[in-house]
């Protein structure tokens, strides 16, 4: 529709587009066709990014595109807009509309829309195995005959139907004959609008007319551009038709499509009643009950995060990698070699010095951060794959409404405990700009990422009571800022609606793919930054700039009641949040901090400015103005809270 193409060009390969609702297995199908990895997700809207890959069938190569989930050809969310643009921009060899067999009736209207638009469509009825398990029988031959397009039944997760699908792709010849008739009065309206259109469109005039009758804003703009002076006449016709019907045409058209689909499915689906396995249903009900759901959440948090991420990831694995491998063997070995072979002081320092690339950057990245973040991503991916998150979203919706968000925002916020940078990127799945800004603020301020969390929890665990103070202050700031921001940031009130996918056992392959994709992203994003940070710190040390900066921070540290050495931790914090936390760790192990100082430092550092990477993503997603604003507010808040907390702790005598 626009001139801008999505991504680079395909090198002339015929294209296959995968479209459909979220949670119908598009990404799994993409993997099955191309053999490459993408994120497979249960949370509606996580696959915002478009994946491209190639596949070869009978010696012919095709390019495969996986589009974000969409519910209808008329977009509402950002992702749907992207999906539609791809759909209408690319000249596809074949569009595969993937649907969930269990919900065929609900999803078939989009097939109609795709066919109406004049696209070369084939219908992939996926998750057939589950449908059969609950006693559904679908006569696919009959459906194919009625629809006039190829229909393939699959259970991609179980590799069923992939071969048939590949042969359909290879043999597909565009016939585009099917046309679905609506009620006579609606047909007359469509004709009236079609008659006014003269411009060139990528989709059939009939589809354009239908979208116009539904007041599709993007399309109105496009029509305005291509019709020029005639646009006024078109609008007049549209308004006349809308008024003549005196009803909402969007609803009308949807109902007509539904009627047509019922007719198409007559004799196609037969259902046996009451064969649903009861346990998944019962468990699902428990997750949504506030009492048992709350208990389940605590269990998930305790075992998934506290035990697995905190205990295993941040404890066992870190101890082994950091303590045994790096401190015990690698670092001494590297340093002794450097002492022997590198006579130049600057290079020696750069590689194995205090801020050396090998001794600091790689040690932090590999031994400290990777195990924690990795463990978090594993836990997150497992939980995500079960379909638990939409249930959590529905549980917390009421609370989140108070801080100006809706239940959906729970996903980016939980992900923030893994990596705030990635979470900031995921906030784009929220529907309104206001919600995205609010979520970004909360992520920047009050959500510590897993690496930081791991180190801070370890630190505070040694001081009784500190953990409690730290977490209550953070919770307090989170709620307070949320409540305030919800009042101050203008925009419409959020609304919550969500499809709740069935609970299922996590599939190891999905979990692995998701974890690996996230780890890979994290590593590409984090590793260069670690090295850059280390080089900058080294340069700072060599030139004395670092001392200067540290001295500049000293008055601030004094205000917070912290020793001057803590400045370094805060400056590290600029580069990565966990760098800062790890800096504190060093201070603590050298016995430089009292209990009060430790708590104040931990709170301030947690609240303090997001790391460089997060700031860059903030700027990319929200723009300079908003991100700088957030940056300033967060910094000011972090130090004020630290200042007040220090005073409070000292006056009250708690912890000292």
């Amino acid at each position, binding site marked *: 529709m626009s001139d801008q193409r999505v991504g680079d060009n395909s090198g002339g390969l015929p294209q296959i587009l995968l479209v459909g609702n979220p949670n119908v297995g598009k990404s799994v199908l993409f993997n099955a066709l191309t053999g490459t990895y993408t994120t497979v997700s249960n949370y509606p809207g996580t696959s915002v990014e478009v994946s491209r890959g190639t596949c070869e069938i009978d010696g012919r190569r095709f390019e495969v595109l996986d589009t974000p989930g969409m519910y209808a050809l008329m977009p509402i969310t950002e992702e749907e807009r992207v999906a539609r643009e791809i759909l209408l921009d690319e000249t596809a060899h074949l569009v595969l509309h993937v649907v969930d067999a269990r919900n065929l009736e609900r999803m078939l209207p989009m097939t109609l829309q795709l066919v109406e638009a004049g696209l070369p469509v084939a219908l992939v009825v996926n998750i057939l195995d589950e449908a059969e398990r609950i006693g559904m029988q679908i006569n696919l031959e009959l459906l194919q005959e009625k629809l006039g397009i190829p229909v393939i039944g699959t259970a991609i997760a179980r590799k069923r139907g992939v071969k048939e699908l590949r042969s359909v792709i290879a043999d597909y010849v565009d016939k585009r004959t099917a046309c679905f008739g609506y009620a006579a009065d609606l047909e007359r309206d469509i004709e009236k609008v079609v008659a006014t259109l003269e411009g060139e469109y990528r989709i059939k005039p009939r589809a354009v007319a239908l979208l116009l009758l539904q007041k599709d804003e993007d399309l109105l703009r496009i029509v305005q551009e291509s019709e020029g002076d005639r646009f006024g006449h078109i609008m007049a016709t549209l308004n006349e038709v809308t008024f003549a019907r005196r009803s909402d045409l969007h609803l009308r058209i949807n109902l007509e499509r539904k009627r047509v689909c019922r007719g198409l499915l007559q004799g196609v689906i037969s259902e046996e009643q009451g064969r649903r396995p009861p346990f998944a249903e019962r468990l699902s009900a428990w997750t949504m009950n506030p009492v048992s759901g709350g208990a389940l959440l605590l269990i998930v948090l305790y075992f998934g995060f506290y035990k697995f991420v905190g205990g295993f990831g941040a404890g066992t694995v870190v101890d082994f990698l950091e303590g045994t491998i790096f401190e015990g063997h690698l670092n001494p070995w590297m340093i002794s070699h450097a002492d022997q072979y590198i006579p130049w002081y600057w290079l020696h320092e750069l590689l194995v010095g205090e801020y050396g690339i090998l001794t600091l950057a790689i040690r932090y990245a590999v031994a400290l951060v990777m195990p924690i973040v990795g463990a978090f991503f594993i836990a997150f991916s497992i939980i995500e794959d079960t379909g638990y998150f939409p249930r959590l979203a529905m549980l917390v919706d009421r609370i989140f409404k108070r801080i100006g968000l809706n239940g959906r925002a729970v996903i980016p916020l939980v992900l923030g405990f893994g990596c705030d940078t990635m979470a900031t990127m995921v906030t784009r799945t929220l529907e309104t700009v206001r919600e995205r800004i609010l979520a970004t603020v909360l992520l920047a301020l009050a959500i510590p990422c897993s690496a930081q969390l791991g180190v801070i929890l370890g630190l505070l665990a040694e001081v009784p009571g500190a953990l409690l103070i730290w977490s209550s202050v953070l919770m307090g700031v989170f709620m307070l800022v949320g409540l305030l921001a919800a009042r101050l940031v203008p925009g419409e009130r959020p*609304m919550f609606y969500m499809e709740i996918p069935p609970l299922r056992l996590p599939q190891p392959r999905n979990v692995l793919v998701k974890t690996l994709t996230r780890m890979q992203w994290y590593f590409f994003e984090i590793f260069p930054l670690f090295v850059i940070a280390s080089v900058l710190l080294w340069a700072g040390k060599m030139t004395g700039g670092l001392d200067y900066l540290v001295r500049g921070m000293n008055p601030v540290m004094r205000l917070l009641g912290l020793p001057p050495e803590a400045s370094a931790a805060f400056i590290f914090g600029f580069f990565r949040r966990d760098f800062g936390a790890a800096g504190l760790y060093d201070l603590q192990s050298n016995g430089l901090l009292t209990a009060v100082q430790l708590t104040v430092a931990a709170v301030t550092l947690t609240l303090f400015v997001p790391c460089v990477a997060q700031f860059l993503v903030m700027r990319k997603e929200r723009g300079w103005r908003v991100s700088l604003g957030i940056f300033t507010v967060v910094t000011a808040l972090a130090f004020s809270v630290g200042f007040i907390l220090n005073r409070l702790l000292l006056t009250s005598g708690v912890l000292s």
Partner: protein
Amino acid sequence: MRLPENAEEILEALWIATVEKGDNAAPFDVLKTSADDAALAELVRLSYVEIKGERVYLRQEGRHEAMMTVRRHRLAERLMMDILDIKGRQGDEKACEFEHLLHQGVDTKICTLLNHPETCPHGRPIPPGECCERARHSGEVGVVALTELKAGECGEIAYFSTTDMKKMQKLMSMGVLPGCELLLTRSYPSFIFKVGHSEFAVDDELAREIFIRKS
């Protein structure tokens, strides 16, 4: 016989204070009246209420009239908000003026038009009138908001009431359309319902706009 408008207002406030809030009587200031109020004197004359000191008691004789006044007020509110789409403060004000017109069977007609609603837009109960009892007896199926359904009840989606269609488009494109059979499985903390084999969650605000023909 018609009561003056301000007498109706007093009865209404008295009903809310005594029957709904459980007090045995209401002081003058709650009823926004005083000892020398003519309207109050009229109510005493009809022996609808009784005054002891500074407090006004609702008598058995006045109960029915008070209940009907409250009913007319809340029906007027429903009419304003659901049908005429006058919401917020303006809706409340207009409802206050409108309620006094709902006499001589007009209330029955409005009640039937609104399909015998059980609560006002603020969630307070609308006392049932004869028409509601008759409808209940003859087993008329009512159309109610999703918020009125109890968990485990099912029905068919009758219509979406909102004028902001953008809100409903998402539900519609997800396949939740008038004519669909719906089963409500939870109503707290969010409304969870099933359509076909899929489950959906919506918040109060959205649930209030989805109307269900109970089955």
